[in-house]
């Protein structure tokens, strides 16, 4: 990556609250003009990360660089970034115009220019006619637009958005997702966007950083994150997935023959040895059902139910081991009757290996030693 167009750099950033690490060794380069999403379940440290970039809280360790400058110790108003808050945080006593103008008034921009730029912004976020409204007299979507305009008018290099659409209903949210994306493309401003909604992340982002318990597990384009999840968590959090435990039975070029509890299967992968234990992830839309056995596969199950969910049919198949497999197919496809026995298979290239057990054990060992180290340090201090 060209370091010139990195606009935000996080280098091994950590944050502790009362001795509990909520962000762990986070390193991340955000490129100029990109739409980067921090995706993860509630409580994984997304807001905390955003607040450190904005300057509302200081990192416990590590460094944060904005436009190549270390910003530790700089106040929010000394950083060329602006934030759109989770609950809008509009000033309730000011009307739309005054809310939007707030930042420019602080910068002592001449009145005529403020007026012009505010009306430009109001046009940009389509709030014409509501200039004199107070926040209490507006809908959630409108308030959100004011919050975005209020931040954008300061021409920040980076706009930070913390679940900005979280409070809106589904339909409005979908519409605002597209609008925000278009706005970002039009203005070319870097967006750092926080959400726990994987669909939203996949729709809007140039790149997604998936966070889990304070750790960034993967960063990549929506395609990479969805189709090539690196860890079990990413595979299960982003999109629907079937995660299966298996052992390598034999290696045949880049075709790996594996044993699942429920039967034999195969996939494309390199660098694995016989007897190695691996987790594989297969997306529901890649699972195929047939009434006759398929080469390399011997997994059998029974169709439990079909759920028609508009554009897809979601099918549940119970394997002989009792495990439930999720299958998705097109409504126009032929569907095996409920209760019938089927053979399960997939194209070998459609299964992905996620986070092998060795790696997991390694992680556990690493974490435990770190903890032990800390405790030993604690004992030393106690003796002093």
């Amino acid at each position, binding site marked *: 990556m060209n370091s010139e167009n990195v606009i935000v750099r996080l280098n091994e950033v950590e944050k502790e609250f009362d001795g509990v690490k909520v962000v762990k060794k986070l390193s991340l380069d955000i490129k100029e003009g990109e739409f980067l999403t921090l995706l993860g379940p509630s409580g994984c440290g997304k807001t905390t990360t955003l607040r450190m970039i904005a300057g509302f809280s200081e990192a416990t360790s590590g460094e944060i660089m904005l436009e190549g400058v270390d910003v530790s110790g700089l*106040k929010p*108003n000394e950083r060329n970034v*602006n*934030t759109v*808050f989770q609950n809008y*945080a509009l*000033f309730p006593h000011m009307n739309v115009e005054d809310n939007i103008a707030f930042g420019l008034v*602080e910068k002592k921009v001449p009145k005529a220019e403020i007026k012009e730029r505010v009306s430009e912004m109001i046009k940009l976020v389509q709030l014409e006619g509501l200039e004199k409204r107070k926040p209490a007299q507006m809908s959630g979507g409108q308030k959100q637009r004011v919050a975005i305009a209020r*931040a954008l008018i300061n021409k920040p290099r980076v706009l930070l958005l913390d679940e900005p659409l979280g409070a809106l209903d589904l339909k409005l949210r979908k519409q605002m997702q597209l609008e925000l994306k278009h706005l970002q493309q039009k203005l070319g401003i870097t967006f750092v966007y926080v959400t726990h909604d994987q669909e939203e992340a996949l729709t809007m982002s140039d790149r997604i950083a998936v966070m889990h318990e304070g750790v960034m597990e993967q960063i990549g384009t929506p395609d990479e994150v969805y189709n090539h999840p690196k860890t079990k968590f990413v595979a299960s959090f982003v999109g629907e997935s079937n995660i299966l435990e298996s052992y390598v039975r034999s290696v045949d070029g880049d075709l790996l023959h594996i044993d699942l509890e429920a039967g034999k299967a195969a996939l494309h992968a390199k660098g694995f040895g016989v007897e190695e234990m691996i987790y594989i992830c297969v997306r529901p839309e890649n699972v195929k059902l047939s009434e006759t056995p398929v080469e390399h596969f011997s997994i059998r199950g029974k169709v439990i139910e079909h759920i028609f969910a508009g554009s897809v049919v979601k099918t549940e198949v119970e394997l002989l081991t009792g495990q439930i497999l999720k299958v998705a197919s097109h409504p126009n496809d032929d569907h095996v009757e409920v209760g019938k026995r089927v053979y399960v298979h997939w194209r070998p290239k459609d299964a992905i290996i996620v986070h092998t057990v060795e790696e997991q054990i390694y992680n556990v060992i690493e974490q435990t030693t770190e903890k032990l180290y800390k405790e030993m340090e604690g004992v030393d201090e106690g003796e002093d």
Partner: protein
Amino acid sequence: MKETEKTFLKKSRKIKNNPWSVVYACLVYIFLYMPIAVVIAFSFNTSRMNVVFEGFTFDWYISMWSNTLLMQAFKNTLIVAFVSTLLSTFLGTLCAVGLNRFEFKLKSLISTSLYIPIVIPELVFAIAMLILFTSVNISMNMATLIISHVTFSMPFVVITVRSRMAGFDKSIEEAAHDLGANELHTFTRVILPMIAPGVLSGAMLALTLSLDDVVVSFFTAGPDSQTLPLRILSMVKKGVSPDVNALSTLIIIGSVLLLVSTTLIQNKLEKEG
């Protein structure tokens, strides 16, 4: 939904039409306002005695201005009320903002201890102030009186302002910082306008508390700083002269005007907020 609304409307209309409810309401008002009406009536009484109404006169409204003791007490009351209201509103608002803003050790202890002047009996509080002042050899004067009034009225300001702030989203302050406002501007442009209605009601409370205080003033006022309530109290034995009624009537009119205007201002602030 519509059904219940209709029946509700019907019911409320029924209550209005019920003659007993009107009688009841009248009785309540008579009970509340009779004493005030009596004071106003007797301020126009020609007799010196507040017992029978003999004839109508405006004399007391003229003679009260030459009653120097009464006028001096009235002046003291106004000075004390004005200064102590300003001080307690200022200190109380700062205190509330600080308590809302910062997290620190003993915070809950400090915020609970603010209630002490409110809950302990006024007499105990007054004697405590007296002991405090005498133990450091301060003789009672206007300043001790004002300090005492600030002490008992400030907690009320803190409470009203804090309750006003309780519902606020903390990120509003952060938004102001984010948009380039320093601490001072964040306070003057964002926080203060938002808490203004609370500050105003706090100030009104402080003002009324100070205006009609007897117990604390009795112990902490010096000979030169007797307030109107104390003056009237001392007149009770000899009989309260009708010019007190006249002055009281003026004070009642003043209070009503003040109440109406603050309500109007508050409504305006609420609409803006």
